[in-house]
């Protein structure tokens, strides 16, 4: 049998471990995210409130870690599902490339949001 890429016995082990580590990180960050953004009194989150939060470098560091782990966990999860149902080299390469391109694009858009909003001058 010809060995496909990523199909040695150890290939999935690190991804498996990282999936669980990122899961624990996400569990904590998701609750913080929900309480700070979605469960606040005003509900209909006004721009000013969000922008004010995003002036704190520590808050932005958390957002960055959240974005990174959420995308990693989500796209690695998609890849795990794909590995169960797609077995040809062609489809796997195609989908893996799409995941990489899509993930990079989403990461870029997310970072753009963090950087642009945190650099805005609230007084002006």
């Amino acid at each position, binding site marked *: 049998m010809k060995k496909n890429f990523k199909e040695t016995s150890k290939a999935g082990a690190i991804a498996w471990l990282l999936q669980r580590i990122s899961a624990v990180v*996400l*569990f904590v960050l998701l609750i913080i995210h*929900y309480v700070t953004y*979605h469960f606040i009194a005003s509900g209909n989150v006004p721009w000013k409130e969000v922008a004010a939060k995003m002036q704190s470098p520590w808050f932005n560091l958390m957002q960055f870690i959240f974005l990174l782990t959420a995308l990693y966990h989500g796209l690695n999860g998609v890849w795990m599902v794909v590995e169960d149902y797609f*077995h040809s080299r062609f489809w796997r390469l195609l989908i893996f490339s799409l995941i990489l391109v899509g993930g990079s694009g989403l990461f870029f858009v997310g970072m753009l949001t963090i950087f642009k909003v945190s650099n805005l001058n609230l007084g002006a």
Partner: protein
Amino acid sequence: MYKRTKFFDPNYYKFIGSWAWILHRLSGLALIFYLSLHIWVINSLTYGPDKFNEVMTFLASPLFKILEVGLWGVILFHAFNGVRVVIVDFFKGSLFHKKLFFVLIAIAFVMWAWGSYIILSHIR
């Protein structure tokens, strides 16, 4: 050669673990779809207060708030079943994973009711 995995084999669905597994998978796929939308839509923060507040007012309609309640449920299921997966994988959770499932789902359900109450109180 590979044995092809059936997406839904009724023989396996006599057990709670199989349901947890397939629902974890489906909710995961739903969540990465939502995460992509969320990262994209929240980029409207960079267009300034007027545009962002317009988007947020649109999303404060009853339809989107009810969808949000559903989303909160899907998130909680995935998060709490994820806790179960971690406990089964790293601790001796396989010995009590069925009980664990119901305990964690009960906690998730309480959190769902609490969060849904807050979300629905935000309807404009």
